[in-house]
């Protein structure tokens, strides 16, 4: 049997990969969170002692925060109290029923798959239908892995990294987002399930977009994802998170942490498409997406770019930021956030300028339709030592209909007089005039809205890798379907 067939077989039976997963019922632990639960999670994952210690420290901190009601309330979002003791913090795999064919998948989801043009085999994988062993991207994944290995690039699940590359994990884990950073980061640090780890060695330019999509075993990593990407000196990497397909999950609370580290002359580009279940048209259900994402431009001339297209989730609370520590380092944030129906988003960025001649660019496009509420919240901080720092921020809001809202909360702290900061903001409405003009040229209402919205987001889509950009446009039109007339 060839090695390739072997891998395929392994992947086809991946559900049982962790050995202890035999009975779904038994594998789900009791609801609630205490020290024993944290220990149990660590034990189940076969973690070394230092990892457990790290988790426990975070847990104790979180406990203090919870006691003092330190769950953040400053964001412009509304939701009922979260019962942290009502959540199950470990279940592997998801107790989603396995389906036998695509006919058993929710027709609404299938419709979206078709509109997005997702191939059949992929549709099966995404919706949890048993997969044939000939699934294309399996072999793609194996080929990729071999190629990456030759270059010394490490790209694996977080659990694997803890076991196989403990020194790297120890060195960088929590170095950008410490467990004390905020309430949800503390929670994640204590109970994180799995996620991705990538290390690009010195001088290596990663030859392909790294994507969780190809790392099959990263599926179903659960609600507390943890990602760490390190680009060593002179390394370059582009990472894609998520996919445009609708993601259903029984867990309402998602609290992920992503840390990026760029050393001297390194470049990291991190692109996200987020399409979690947004809840129904009446605003029932939907995922709370409370994410902490931060990159550290640790070395000189390093560069980190965040690009995000956020169309899903009932509530999005997320501020991918950059710590510009190295001299001449560059931070960029490009964002499109869509809220339709009863979705709420409070998102933006933090650019912390520490080094000399550090530069940052922020382009945020918020689109509100239905009863959606969309807030941009951004902090530009220029420290005393950041001589010659520059920032340009542009925040545009587009309103569709008159029941939605757009808000902008820019914060600036400038401690160096040589800094230059520019901030532009605009709010516009898709006008009846614009739609009528398009229609008068033969373009349907739906196409007109898509065209106008895509025009509005152009500066951000331009930053996405090509095929992602095409998908993002389609996704946007699906998210806004029926929002006009």
């Amino acid at each position, binding site marked *: 049997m060839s090695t390739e067939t072997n891998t395929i077989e392994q992947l086809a039976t991946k559900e049982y990969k962790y050995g202890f997963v035999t009975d779904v019922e038994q594998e789900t632990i009791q609801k609630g969170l205490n020290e024993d639960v944290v220990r149990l999670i660590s034990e189940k994952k076969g973690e070394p002692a230092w990892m457990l210690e790290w988790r426990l420290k975070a847990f104790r901190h979180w406990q203090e925060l919870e006691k003092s009601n330190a769950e953040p309330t400053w964001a412009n979002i509304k939701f009922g109290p979260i019962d942290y003791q009502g959540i199950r913090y470990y279940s592997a795999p998801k107790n989603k029923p396995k389906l036998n064919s695509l006919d058993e998948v929710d027709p609404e989801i299938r419709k979206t798959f078709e509109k997005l043009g997702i191939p059949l085999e992929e549709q099966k994988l995404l919706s949890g239908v048993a997969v044939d062993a000939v699934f294309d991207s399996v072999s793609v994944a194996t080929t990729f892995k071999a190629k990456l290995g030759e270059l010394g690039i490490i790209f694996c699940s977080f659990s694997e990294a803890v076991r196989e590359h403990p020194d790297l994990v120890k060195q960088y884990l929590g170095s950008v987002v410490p467990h004390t950073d905020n309430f949800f980061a503390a929670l994640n640090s204590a109970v994180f399930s799995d996620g991705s780890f990538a290390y690009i060695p010195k001088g290596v330019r990663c030859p392909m977009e790294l994507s969780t999509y190809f790392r099959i075993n990263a599926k179903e990593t659960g609600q507390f994802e943890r990602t760490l990407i390190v680009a060593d000196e002179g390394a370059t990497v582009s990472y894609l998170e998520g996919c445009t397909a609708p993601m259903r999950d029984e867990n309402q609370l998602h609290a992920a942490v992503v840390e990026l580290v760029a050393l001297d002359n390194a470049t990291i580009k991190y692109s996200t498409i987020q399409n979690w279940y947004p809840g129904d048209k009446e605003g029932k259900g939907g995922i709370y997406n409370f994410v902490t994402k931060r990159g550290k431009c640790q070395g000189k001339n390093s560069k980190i770019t965040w690009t995000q297209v956020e169309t899903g989730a009932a509530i999005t609370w997320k501020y991918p930021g950059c710590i510009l520590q190295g001299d001449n380092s560059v931070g960029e944030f490009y964002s499109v956030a869509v809220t339709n129906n009863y979705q709420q988003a409070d998102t933006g960025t933090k650019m912390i300028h520490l080094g000399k001649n550090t530069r940052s660019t922020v382009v945020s496009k918020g689109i509100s339709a239905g009863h959606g509420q969309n807030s941009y919240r951004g902090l530009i901080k220029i420290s005393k030592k950041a001589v010659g720092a520059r920032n340009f921020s542009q925040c545009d809001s587009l309103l569709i209909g008159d029941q939605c809202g757009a808000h902008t909360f820019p914060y600036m702290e400038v401690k160096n007089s040589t800094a230059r900061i520019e901030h532009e903001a605009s709010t516009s409405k898709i006008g*009846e005039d614009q739609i009528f003009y398009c*229609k*008068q*040229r*033969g373009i349907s209402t739906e*196409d007109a809205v898509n065209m106008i919205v*895509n*025009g509005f987001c152009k500066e951000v889509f331009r930053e996405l890798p090509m095929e992602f950009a095409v998908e993002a446009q389609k996704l946007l039109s699906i998210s806004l379907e029926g929002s006009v007339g």
Partner: protein
Amino acid sequence: MLEIVNLHAEIEGKKILKGIDLKVNVGEVHAIMGPNGSGKSTLAQVLAGRESYSVSQGEIRYQGKDLLDMDPDERAREGVFMAFQYPVEIPGVSNAYFLKSGLNAVRKHHGLEELDAMEFLKLIKEKAKSVNMDETLLNRPVNQGFSGGEKKRNEIFQMAVLEPKLAILDETDSGLDIDALRIVADGINKFRSKSNAVILVTHYQRILSYVVPDHVHVLLNGRIVRSGGKELALQLEEKGYDWVKEESEVTV
């Protein structure tokens, strides 16, 4: 091609058109003239299907079909084009992309194959030349940052590309200097043919020296009070709208 019978239309409860009768045959150019507030633009908007106007009475037949029964985009695909008095800006959408979407929607409607990027580019470059439009405007966002004259020229350019059957030009001549007026008029003359028709809505006689109409109608207070040949426009220029007003009061 177009037959308007006893058309009454209003906006926000205000009656604007009070019984318009008009017949336009293929190959003809009709000028609709009248003072401000007479209902000229309303007539153009109603023909194009602007939703804020409601038709309370009357009917419009277009190529044997009930025009009022069609959505604005359907009308456009059936060959009704309106050059806007105030062309609309669409940020981030290039003029070329916008027009390609429109043209392909029209082509698809008629069972023709959609043009690909290369074919389309070739077409618009030709057309741009014919209306003397700067090629750089093709890649700029729709009407954004265009001067008044450029916007109007862009409308005529779109007409040239879309090749409608019925073109309604809503005060396309207003606000143009004499050079721009000539270019616009030239574009209209190149467009007019035996197989289409033009309704030219205007306040001034000026453009009619360049685009010679077959029929001239004077609109007053929501009604056509007088129709005639091209000489009517000259009479109006000479005597002013008051002259028609007085005359029409006598006849009523």
